[in-house]
């Protein structure tokens, strides 16, 4: 990409020079007399290419290169002991080797992979569906005219305004079994303390609750925008025809929100699938490994267990990418079938 672009710029500049030369009657051009489609496109749009070059370069450096390197590492046996490293003035060369698909076979045949995958899917589906439903309800409520609407909106956006890790740590304090506020309140009501983060099932419940809390504002805002773009006349007409509120919701609101919902569900699914901070900061994947999702497992391989296994971690990363790509393809296809243009 980058090479193309710079070439086009150079060529565009070269053309000018050549034109000048041609004007002086010493033309040696043979190839550009009948420019091809690509060439013509480059010549016409060279300015646009030049403008996007920095972006393409930056994306290439910060996304493309690590991606390629990650895929390469997943095919090797790289770990902390055999990668190249520089210690002061001493440089140690890399000694890892290419092992083909061995890592993939190992990871997939390990029962841990299936356990993580199942929980990751449960976690994603639960989070997205609850967040979406709550967001929809709240958006509908806030779409009416009532006193103090702005204040409510502000309050509901708040979780989004607070940095994620701050919220998660705050929740961690609330969830603390012995000294947390939640259990103090329950205790006041005569209910025995709940082991929020100490029992596998409750821990799963807790991480989902926190993620929903963090995710609702985004859903709400997006859906509120969608709601406001539905013409009010539709509702008036339906009301005249005697449609019940539920019918109006089903036949006007939902179809009207379709484009927005499809987008936010796709985004939210991808985000939740890879929601590292909530899980890592709240439970560190625990108790035991019961709330570990695929990304936290990849992190564990590379940074927690020692010697750090970079190859296996990269393998997990590539598998996550593949799963998400498959999901996006299936999702897009099903939308096409329903007549959405994507």
């Amino acid at each position, binding site marked *: 990409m980058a090479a193309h672009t710079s070439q086009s710029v150079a060529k565009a500049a070269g053309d000018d020079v050549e034109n000048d030369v041609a004007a002086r009657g010493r033309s040696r051009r043979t190839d550009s007399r009948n420019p091809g489609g690509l060439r013509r496109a480059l010549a016409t749009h060279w300015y646009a290419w030049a403008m996007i070059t920095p972006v393409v370069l930056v994306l290439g450096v910060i996304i493309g290169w690590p991606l390629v390197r990650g895929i390469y590492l997943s095919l090797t046996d790289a770990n902390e002991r055999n990668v190249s490293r520089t210690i002061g003035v001493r440089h140690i060369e890399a000694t890892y080797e290419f092992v083909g698909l061995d890592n993939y076979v190992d990871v997939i045949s390990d029962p841990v992979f299936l356990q993580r995958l199942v929980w990751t899917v449960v976690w994603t589906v639960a989070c997205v569906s609850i967040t979406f439903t709550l967001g929809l309800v709240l958006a509908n409520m806030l779409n009416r005219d009532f006193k103090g609407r702005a204040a409510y909106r502000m309050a509901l956006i708040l979780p989004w305004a607070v940095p994620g890790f701050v919220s998660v740590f705050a929740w961690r304090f609330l969830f*603390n079994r012995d000294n947390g506020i939640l259990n103090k309140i329950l205790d006041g009501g005569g209910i025995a303390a709940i082991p929020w983060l*100490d*029992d596998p099932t409750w821990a799963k419940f807790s991480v989902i609750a926190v993620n929903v809390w963090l995710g609702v504002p985004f859903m709400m805002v997006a859906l509120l925008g969608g709601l406001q773009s539905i013409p009010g006349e539709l509702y008036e007409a339906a009301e005249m025809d005697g449609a019940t509120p539920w019918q109006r919701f089903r036949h006007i609101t939902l179809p009207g929100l379709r484009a927005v919902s499809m987008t936010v569900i796709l985004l939210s699914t991808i985000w939740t699938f890879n929601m590292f901070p909530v899980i890592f900061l709240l439970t560190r994947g625990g*108790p*035991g490994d019961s709330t570990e999702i695929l990304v936290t497992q990849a992190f564990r391989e590379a940074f927690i267990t020692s010697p750090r296994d970079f190859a296996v971690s990269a393998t997990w990363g590539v598998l996550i990418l593949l799963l998400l790509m498959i999901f996006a393809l299936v999702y897009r296809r099903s939308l096409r079938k329903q007549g959405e243009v994507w």
Partner: protein
Amino acid sequence: MRRGIAATALVAALALAATACGGDDKDAAGGTKAGGELSGTVTWWDTSNDAEKASFQKIAEAFTAKHPKVTVKYVNVPYGDAQNKVKNAFSSGSDAPDVIRADVGWVADFASLGYLDEVPAETAKKVDAEFLPQAAASGKYEGKTYAVPQVIDTLGLFYNKKMLADAGVQPPKTLEELKTAAAAIKAKSGKAGLYLRGDDSYWFLPLIYGEGGDLVDAKTKTVTVDNEAGVKAFKTARDLVTSGAAVTNATDGWTNMQTAFKSGEAAMMINGPWAVADTYAGDQFKDKANLGVAAVPAGSAKAGAPQGGHDLGVYAGSKNRDAAHAFVEYMTSQEVQVQSAKELSLLPTRTAAYEQPDVKGSEMVQFFKPAVDKAVERAWIPENGSLFEPLKVEYTKAITGASSPEDAAKAAGIEFRKILKGWK
């Protein structure tokens, strides 16, 4: 041609300058010794806890009094994140500390990766001659000394004397006695007998030693966590919780344990000397005499606690190695060790320090010293520190009932063999 001559002359001049500089100094690049005097900045990453860090910062910065041209940059890195942070810093080389306080379990790992600078020969000789042998062993890897022991510790049973007296029980010597004592305490005060930390597998070690087991046997290269004694240890852990003798947490264990013990919500806990300073700050221990320490309760085989502690190591890539080694020597000197024993009840690693009145006068030190002498020395292999993470997962699962003791032991064995490639 001219240019060639000029370049050669320049190189020659530089070489001369370099050798001139290096004539009396060992390390010209670092430029730490200008006329024999140390200079530069030594960055020290300390992993001591909140109650200890102020004291260590003060001690570290006092190094400047001895070497006015050296600036000590004190950085406190929370222990839990330290191993990871240190590795990141060491492997990237940027912003790496010059000196780190490493858990004894990390030294072999860091040394095997080439991160630690070997201790100068004279210091290494002193370590062998003047330090407790088991402490000195922790700083070695393949026969070479890479770190100097700063403190040594082991686990003991901390108890609230008043709560035990109120319930009419003696400090328990075995887990069976502990269960009886816990029942009496609960009947008397409604509080828990023991707080057993459930989110850190280090606290599992006394249980497995108590059953006569160990995590691994380095001599025969065998993983032993999943043998009969190992399974029994997981059973014991689960049993302590289900029988109501102990309370536990799977998250925030350190804070919860200290809070519970300091406020009298739990009458006993298993902990090390590093917890003493913080414990004294609690309501229940305004009168320091209320804190008692006993040996960890024995399992069915014996009573055993792991040898722990912290060593100081110098980063192999440090630009200031001379000053860094001098700093390590200072921090492990007898004077400093006596001071931290007095202020924080931490155990010195120098044999002679135990003769000092301040150390002799510390009740905690007097208790822990014999315990340290008997403590179970761990296998000082590079993977030592790595075993705790997978073990933690299984220990927490077993203690919270998410997995049976048999499954937990088996799973820990599988994970251990993944880390220790080629072991039985």
